[in-house]
């Protein structure tokens, strides 16, 4: 025994000290999550894919992904997984699509759970791939070089039935302008330059197209941004859409309506819609239930996606309240709360994702 005195001594030091760390890190308590549905159903296809990510500050590399069906997935990251973290947001897609989306010069667009990737090849031809979330179906379209193309920066911005609209977003020097609009026929697998009744300039950015009506914003370098609706040869300025808060626009109803969310507060959710069919502008507002004055509100967010307004408000006492509203009718599609129980620690909500 004396022959191995030093080995034993150092071995015991290693086991005892590192053992403390091993025991400490494996004995961290697990939170329990409770999802309460107040209105609607979590089986709704546009609701069930909502995911909320909570982080444990005590073990900051541990995240909990909670769905509205109450399913909890514990995700632990380590040095290696952080090194190869996939930021593409298409991790569930087939390998060929993920590979396509990993290209550098690629424009990505998502509408109604369908993800599009557009890549401009060196010879000017286009490669388009699309993937419908929740399926294994990938559509690949190779398109010849369209007329009047220049540069490589083109971005899809709207899908209406079997048509995908693409705008040019600048040359080598990126300038937000879309002087040409291209229409990709997903069924016929063909692309053509749109014959617009007027000429767009480098300063124009198209927001939506509905039949022969074009909603666009003009952004001159030295003047205020203006929004116009162009109908044949007449252009109408829409001042109510020139609010800075409303710059993040989304197409609803396949381009017939444009929606914009405003900053959500603890008392209300506000958003606006503009219908290109009826030329009607509507401001929507949903009042949230009153909360205790001393209740700390931590995190609020409202986003427009899949023709719905997804919002949440996180408070320390009441957990996370979720509201899903129809963007046009204001009807409540889903209402619920997520609460967690973790006596010693306090979880932090990282955010909401729609898969």
């Amino acid at each position, binding site marked *: 025994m004396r*022959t*191995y*005195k*030093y*080995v034993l*001594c*150092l*071995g015991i*030091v*290693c086991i*005892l*000290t*590192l*053992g*403390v*760390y*091993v025991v*400490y*890190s*494996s004995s*961290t308590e697990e939170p329990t999550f409770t999802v309460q549905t107040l209105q609607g159903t979590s089986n709704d296809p546009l609701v069930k894919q909502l995911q909320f990510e909570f982080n444990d*500050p*005590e*073990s*900051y*590399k*541990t995240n909990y992904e909670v769905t509205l069906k109450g399913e909890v997935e514990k995700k*632990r*990251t*380590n*040095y*290696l997984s952080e*090194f*190869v*973290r*996939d930021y593409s947001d298409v991790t569930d897609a087939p*390998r060929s699509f*993920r*590979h396509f989306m*990993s*290209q*550098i010069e690629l424009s990505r667009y998502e509408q109604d759970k369908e993800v599009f990737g557009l890549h401009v090849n060196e010879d000017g031809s286009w490669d388009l791939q699309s993937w419908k979330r929740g399926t294994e179906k990938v559509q690949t379209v190779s398109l010849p070089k369209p007329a009047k193309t220049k540069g490589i920066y083109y971005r899809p911005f709207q899908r209406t039935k079997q048509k995908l609209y693409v705008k040019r977003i600048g040359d080598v020097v990126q300038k937000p302008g879309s002087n040409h609009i291209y229409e990709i026929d997903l069924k016929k697998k063909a692309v053509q330059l749109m014959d617009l009744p007027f000429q767009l300039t480098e300063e124009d950015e198209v927001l939506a197209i509905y039949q022969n009506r074009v909603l666009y914003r003009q952004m001159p370098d030295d003047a205020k941004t203006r929004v116009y609706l162009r109908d044949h040869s007449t252009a109408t300025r829409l001042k109510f859409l020139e609010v800075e808060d409303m710059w993040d626009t989304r197409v609803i109803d396949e381009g017939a309506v444009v929606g914009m969310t405003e900053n959500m507060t603890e008392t209300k959710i506000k958003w606006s819609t503009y219908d290109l069919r009826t030329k009607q502008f509507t401001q929507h507002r949903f009042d949230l239930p009153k909360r205790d004055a001393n209740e700390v509100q931590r995190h609020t967010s409202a986003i427009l996606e899949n023709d719905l307004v997804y919002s949440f408000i996180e408070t320390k006492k009441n957990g996370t309240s979720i509201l899903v509203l129809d963007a046009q009718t204001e009807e409540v599609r889903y209402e619920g709360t997520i609460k967690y129980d973790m006596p010693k620690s306090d979880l932090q909500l990282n955010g909401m994702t729609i898969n």
Partner: protein
Amino acid sequence: MKQYIQLMNEEIKRSFKIYMIVVLAMIVIELASIVAQVMYHARKVENFMELNRVSVAEALKQIDTLGYSEASSFFSYVTLIGMAIVVIYAIQIWYRDWLGETKYIYRLLMLPGSRASIFFSKLTTVFLIIVSFIGIQWCVLQSGFYLFDWLIQPEYQNQSGLSPVRNVMNDFYTMNLIDLGIVLVISLFIVSFIFLLVLIERSFRKGKAVIRIGLEIFVPVALTIGILALLDETRYLLETEAMFLLIGLSLCYFVYIIWKSLRLLQRKITV
């Protein structure tokens, strides 16, 4: 096996005194740094109160409360010093056998049986030192928190994130045991690489040794850069696939380092 453990015991015995001195010095420095941080913060608050004739609350609004993360800031420097000591030790563990007055290496090389036990006893010794440093540092971090909590006045303490886990080293002690495994594997890899360089230097004449050491460093670095550039350019593999490829190549290279080191020790190094 018996010879391997006996040799390892001998290696540890020869470094035990210096090891104990280093460990105790590190513990004392780290705990003293916490005491100093708490006292410095308290004096800063008191001086501010005296100079501006304000209350504690107002002074803390300006100076800010002290959290364990800030109080333990010195630990990261001590950890870096610990890393440097391990690197020096990985070199010294070989050279002391050649450069010492007793020429201990001759006795080692003359021992009956495989010379692999010499190599692995030294490698295990350095590895155990690394493991003990990591474990001791964690225990000191934990003890430091209780010392901090006991020393500091409650109103001076930053109440948010009041936990021994939230310290300056939480990027290292991530509470994920896979990370601990990765750190240990990388440490073992680096130590083996240092061993290989030392054995090359001992196996060849000066000029040839320099060229071979240069090649041993240049080839893997150039290959890694080349592979990463190729993967980035072709984008043939997804991130996870590229990671598995690199892990596989690193494993192969690790096996090569061990094989080459043993070959040099058994065939090139002579008494």
